[in-house]
């Protein structure tokens, strides 16, 4: 189809961005692409809130007995950081932004199956976020994002119900997103798009949606029970009144462990797209990668009690969950092996998205391997509730998920906005991010192993060196996040105009204009084999 650059300014083609400009046309949109942008802006704001909490925490931890904040305030900070980052950033990040934007495009559809439900999903997210911000303004909650009972249900004097209600409503936002994706992927694939021709990103979105739909309701009901206990003064989880706090943990982690797979699966999908494009090769073992996504989603439901090894569960339960936790590492490892095999003898382009992808592979591997440490009962006994755990999940969530989000954001930026970001700034920011991340979180493995507990506002003096390194790293990490915020916004106004396929990538989304017209395609595409890089001509690059 004709490239945009031949069309003069005064006859600019209709895209989803320029079609209507009123506020109502954005706030009442049913276009999945606009809803993706609404989400993108919202989660960026929430990321800043959660990030600010982290900055204050890291400043507090510069010295062993800092008086920057009081102990109670510190508790509120890590609670806020956890709630905002988990429920209002990581869970929706790739699915509600890149997923919402790309799922219909990648399968050749005009929109998702239920556009109004998609918009409802955004409004639920905003409602939940508003309640959480209100909770913050009124003084916050101090229970930790895990809301463990009986502290959260009986003893905490902070705004627990408000925080829980915010999370409860946000949960329904994600359930609706998952529902929408599942039905769309089943029923709205274009002609020729069989299951095994779907991009791997779609397989990841599908697997993530399974978790959205089956895990989130359990969290909702569990949090409702905590609210009930606080309001009625009954003892659902209070030992003094007959309740069992471990029951809360079972129900909470039944959601929250699969939730971490919600947070990483979309990232794994993005990486598959990036690694293939920037190696100019089809993925090695496509069907294995696809099936591994489903395996992670399903096996992820069977391991939740590994968060409870020292809580008092039966030892047989511990053994079973430990074995299952080892098994869930296997499909992730398969993905890493397959990406590596894809890279092998590929034509590697070290563009910004690829730098993020390569960083992801290394950091995700470290995070995953340390997960195996934690799955081992004997080691977990020693490092549970220490900074080792914190380092482990930040390697996956930040070194993994956030980097994948950044890589995907850059990769699809031209498709979403029609503009190219400045490549050298992109590369520099990626490197700064990588360096800052490792300086922040690697010392935390050492801290944890040496015994520094998590969620403490003060620590023994011998831990100071690593804490200082970590805070220094955090400041570099912050630069790594601010730079893209800067140059991406800059590119909206002054960036070079992008054609339909500036990176010579495979996939239906690259066959339509950048940005796409409101109905995505001029005419319904017919799908062929995916990742047909061997057929493409790269001689002019």
């Amino acid at each position, binding site marked *: 189809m004709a490239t945009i650059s031949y069309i003069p300014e005064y006859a600019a083609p209709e895209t989803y961005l320029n079609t209507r400009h009123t506020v109502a046309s954005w706030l009442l949109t049913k276009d999945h692409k606009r809803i993706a942008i609404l989400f993108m802006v919202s989660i960026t704001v929430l990321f800043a809130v959660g990030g600010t909490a982290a900055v204050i925490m890291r400043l507090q931890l510069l010295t062993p007995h800092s008086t920057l904040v009081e102990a109670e305030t510190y508790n509120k900070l890590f609670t806020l950081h956890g709630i905002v980052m988990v429920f209002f950033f990581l869970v929706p990040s790739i699915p509600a932004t890149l997923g919402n934007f790309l799922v219909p495009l990648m399968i050749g559809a005009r929109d998702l199956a239920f556009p109004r439900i998609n918009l409802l999903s955004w409004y639920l997210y905003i409602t939940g976020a508003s309640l959480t911000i209100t909770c913050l303004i009124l003084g916050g909650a101090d229970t930790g994002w895990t809301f463990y009972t009986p502290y959260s249900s009986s003893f905490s004097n902070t705004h627990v119900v408000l925080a829980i209600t915010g999370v409860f409503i946000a949960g329904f936002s994600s359930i609706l997103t998952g*529902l929408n994706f*599942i039905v769309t992927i089943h029923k709205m694939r274009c002609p020729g798009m069989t299951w095994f021709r779907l991009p791997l990103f779609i397989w990841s979105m599908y697997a993530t949606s399974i978790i959205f739909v089956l895990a989130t309701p359990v969290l909702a009901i569990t949090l409702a029970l905590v609210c009930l206990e606080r309001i009625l003064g*009954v003892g659902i989880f209070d030992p003094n009144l007959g309740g069992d706090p471990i029951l809360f943990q079972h129900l909470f982690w039944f959601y929250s462990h699969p939730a971490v797979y919600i947070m990483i699966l979309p990232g794994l999908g993005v990486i598959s797209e990036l690694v293939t494009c920037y190696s100019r090769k089809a993925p090695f073992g496509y069907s294995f990668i696809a099936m591994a996504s489903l395996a992670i989603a399903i096996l992820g439901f069977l391991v939740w009690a590994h968060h409870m090894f020292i809580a008092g569960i039966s030892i047989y339960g511990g053994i079973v969950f430990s074995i299952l936790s080892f098994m869930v590492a296997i499909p992730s490892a398969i993905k890493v092996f397959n990406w590596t095999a894809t890279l092998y003898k590929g034509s590697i382009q070290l563009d910004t998205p690829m730098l993020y992808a390569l960083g992801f592979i290394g950091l995700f591997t470290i995070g995953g391997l340390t997960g195996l440490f934690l799955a081992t009962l004997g080691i977990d006994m020693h490092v549970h509730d220490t900074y080792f755990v914190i380092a482990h999940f930040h390697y996956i969530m930040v070194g993994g998920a956030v980097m994948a989000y950044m890589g995907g954001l850059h990769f699809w930026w031209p498709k979403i906005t029609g503009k190219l970001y400045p490549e050298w700034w992109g590369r520099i920011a990626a490197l700064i991010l990588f360096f800052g991340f490792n300086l922040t979180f690697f010392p935390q493995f050492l801290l944890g192993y040496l015994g520094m507990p998590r969620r403490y506002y003060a620590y023994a003096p011998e831990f100071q060196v690593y804490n200082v390194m970590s805070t220094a790293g955090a400041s570099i990490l912050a630069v790594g996040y601010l730079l893209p915020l800067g140059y991406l916004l800059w590119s909206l106004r002054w960036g070079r105009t992008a054609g339909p396929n500036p990176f010579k990538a495979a996939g239906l989304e690259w066959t339509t204009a950048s940005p796409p017209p409101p109905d995505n395609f001029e005419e319904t595409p017919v799908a062929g084999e995916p990742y047909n890089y061997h057929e493409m001509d790269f001689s002019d690059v």
Partner: protein
Amino acid sequence: MSDLVAHQFDDLEQQTEADTLGMWTFLATEVLFFGGMICGYCVYRLLYFPAWHEGSLIVDNFRWLGVSSGAWNTAVLLTSSLTVAMGVRAAKMGDNQFLAKMLVLTLLLGIAFLAIKAAEYTHEYHEGVVPGYSLFHPDEEISGDLRQAAANSQIAENTLRHEFQLFWVFYFFMTGVHALHMVIGVGLFTYLLIEARRGRFTPKKHAPVEIMGLYWHFVDLVWIFLLPLLYLVR
């Protein structure tokens, strides 16, 4: 409700299939939603069987003509599932008049269910078993039964009282959330009735009736399990 196919769909058949699959996916989320409550309920039943037994006897003791309100409610809901199925059948044949009759019956049965539930709750309120630190004060007869049960099972009476209150927390929560779903169902079916009265359904365009019918049947299914779990602990 026009005959237009929404713009994201290629044809009516795709739209119907997508809508139906969407409802089934939603019902799957509901299974897990109720499932969380049921899990908590089952754990405590395992741990506190004597208290659960006592609670269940009282729940089952609100009777009319010798049959407990729980059984009556089950009969009401099963009948409503029949009327829904008959209504969907009418919609598939384009018979809006018969459909409307079936929808009216369904609504009446749904309201009957809620009325019986309200009577149950009122009765239980008067017995003093509504949980909450200011509300929970079981009457003489029940307290006597509890004392007896505590002695039989060799549990401290105070402990049994707390476990007994926990039963009521789950009873009211589970039936309350279920009743909320019934209310939503009544709302949805009122909408269907209005549309049926306007003769809107045809063999081609009967999908909304079938899909909302699925929701109603699901609410019935939940109750089918709540009956033995809450009323028939022996």
